[in-house]
């Protein structure tokens, strides 16, 4: 069902009322209404999240832990409450399994520099897919160089669907860690994590999930996935910039050395030595990003209220519509799965005559924000024999009429360059 303004209302999301929560959607860009389709890069923030930051700074702000004064106690309680909200959101068994980091990238680096540093030896291998974001390639590349280990990739077909059979052979007894994106930020592909986890565990490896593009968009349950580590960023799920999450199993986290040293991560220090605080603090050196933890809690509340199933259905609906409309242009090729039900709300595409950069500038003139370039996945984008692609990506506030604006915008651009 589509209402008079072209907004989807059948998916359980009331998009009109959602849009009212996002002040930035009132902005004019070159005199046009903003059509924000760069959500895979970062999402916009609702009033509820912005207000949680303002409230924190206006009423609660203090350094956390060990403070006996009221503000410090309130700040500590709120900081830990946010942690337990995140734990619930991904169904983590225990709140102390949630480590606050800066972003997905830091979460991945943390595991590479501690767990993998301690467990990977020469001759071992590390397995990733050929569709990873740079943040889930380079830490492993560097670790493999350092350790004399091998970095292995497993393939996907031209539709961007990973080849499970190939994966099963690439993962072998010398595999120590498998690190896989849950959803590709270029192709939109959703990968079969639990099957891969099964294989990883069979050979005694652990599996890390790059959930930067999944936790914001679909129900994610770390226990269902059978994952060992999982990483995501608040800024891609309505939350503030500067804060991300590493989830890990207690048994693994406990055996890992700290990543950074100082401040809160310490139990006792002498001039000669130091020992470490309990989880999760062992991994949180220095004053944490307290305000943005509050903001992340508010983002989780917002999404939980909508229901992640509804969020996912809304995006799938929009994606199906957008693929159909974009392909109707005939001048555009879409990367990734052809079947919209196999992908999330990310559509990377290539125009047969207009370079993504020129298209991006032209769409911006029309108020439409898309991303262009390699999307931090150079090897993948190059495997399509291009050096850049255009990408439109959706979130809870996007509508079918915005998809129409995109498609019209591309047509207008064609008209402009063919004048």
């Amino acid at each position, binding site marked *: 069902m589509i209402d008079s303004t072209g907004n989807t209302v059948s998916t359980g999301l009331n998009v009109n009322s959602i849009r009212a929560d996002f002040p930035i959607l009132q902005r004019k860009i070159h005199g046009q209404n903003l059509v924000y389709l760069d959500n895979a890069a970062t999402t916009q923030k609702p009033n509820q999240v912005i207000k949680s930051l303002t409230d924190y700074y206006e009423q609660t702000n203090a350094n956390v832990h060990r403070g006996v004064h009221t503000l410090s106690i309130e700040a500590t309680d709120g900081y830990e409450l946010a942690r337990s909200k995140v734990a619930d959101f991904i169904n983590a068994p225990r709140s102390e399994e949630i480590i606050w980091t800066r972003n997905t990238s830091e979460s991945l680096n943390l595991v590479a520099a501690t767990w993998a540093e301690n467990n990977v030896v020469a001759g071992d291998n590390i397995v990733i897919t050929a569709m990873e974001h740079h943040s889930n390639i380079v830490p492993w590349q560097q670790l493999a160089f350092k350790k004399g280990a091998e970095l292995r990739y497993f393939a996907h077909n031209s539709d961007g669907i990973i080849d499970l059979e190939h994966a099963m052979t690439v993962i072998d007894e010398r595999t120590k860690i498998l690190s896989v994106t849950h959803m590709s930020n270029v192709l939109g592909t959703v990968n079969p994590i639990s099957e891969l986890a099964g294989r990883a565990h069979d050979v005694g490896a652990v599996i890390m999930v790059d959930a930067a593009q999944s936790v914001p968009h679909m129900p994610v349950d770390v226990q269902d996935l059978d994952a060992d580590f999982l990483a995501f960023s608040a800024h891609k799920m309505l939350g503030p910039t500067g804060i991300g999450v590493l989830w890990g199993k207690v048994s693994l986290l406990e055996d890992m050395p700290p990543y950074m040293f100082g401040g809160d991560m310490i139990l006792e220090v002498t001039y000669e030595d130091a020992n470490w605080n309990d989880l999760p603090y062992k991994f949180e050196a220095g004053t944490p990003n307290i305000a943005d933890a509050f903001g992340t809690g508010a983002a989780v509340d917002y999404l939980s209220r909508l229901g992640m199933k509804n969020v996912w259905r809304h995006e799938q609906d929009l994606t199906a519509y957008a693929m159909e409309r974009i392909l109707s242009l005939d001048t555009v090729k879409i990367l990734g799965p052809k079947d919209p039900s196999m992908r999330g709300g990310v559509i990377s595409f290539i125009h047969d005559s207009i*370079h993504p*950069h*020129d298209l991006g500038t032209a769409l911006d*003139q029309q108020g439409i924000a898309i991303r262009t370039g390699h999307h931090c996945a150079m090897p993948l984008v190059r495997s399509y024999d291009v050096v850049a692609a255009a990408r439109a990506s959706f979130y809870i506030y996007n509508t079918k009429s915005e998809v129409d604006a995109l498609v019209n915008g591309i047509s207008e651009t064609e*008209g*402009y*360059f063919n004048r």
Partner: protein
Amino acid sequence: MTGGMSGLDQMDDLYEVIILDHYRSPRNTSAVENPDIDLEVNNPFCGDEVRIQMKIDRNIVSHVGITGRGCAISQASASLLAELVEGKSSDQVHGAVDSVRRLLKGENITDQEADTLGDIEALQGVRKFPVRIKCALLSWVGLDDALKDHIAGVKS
């Protein structure tokens, strides 16, 4: 939506007729045999690539060939470069690169410089689109460095 409503005419400064012409029909695209300079420059962030081949005779650029793929600005700019540098001395090329740099930064250039640049002045519309300046400068900066290295190599 019409062209006017869509605001695309505001891009006319960026995509001047000369620019689009060079983008669609780039000049000097044939390969140079036994080039003295054979250079690939690229901007991985935007996905712009340019290959520049040149023959240099006694400090004079005698022959240029340019190919590449990328956005209209990077490719047109490279084609304009090819047209300009043929027959110029390395000092003249260096001077032209400097003029282009200042043109794109929004600094004044002299009438004489404008004369030398000719069609290249069409690039000045890029100023209003600062993120595209890198595209416009890509081949110029690469060439300048390569030419300096070449001259230094010949001398030593």
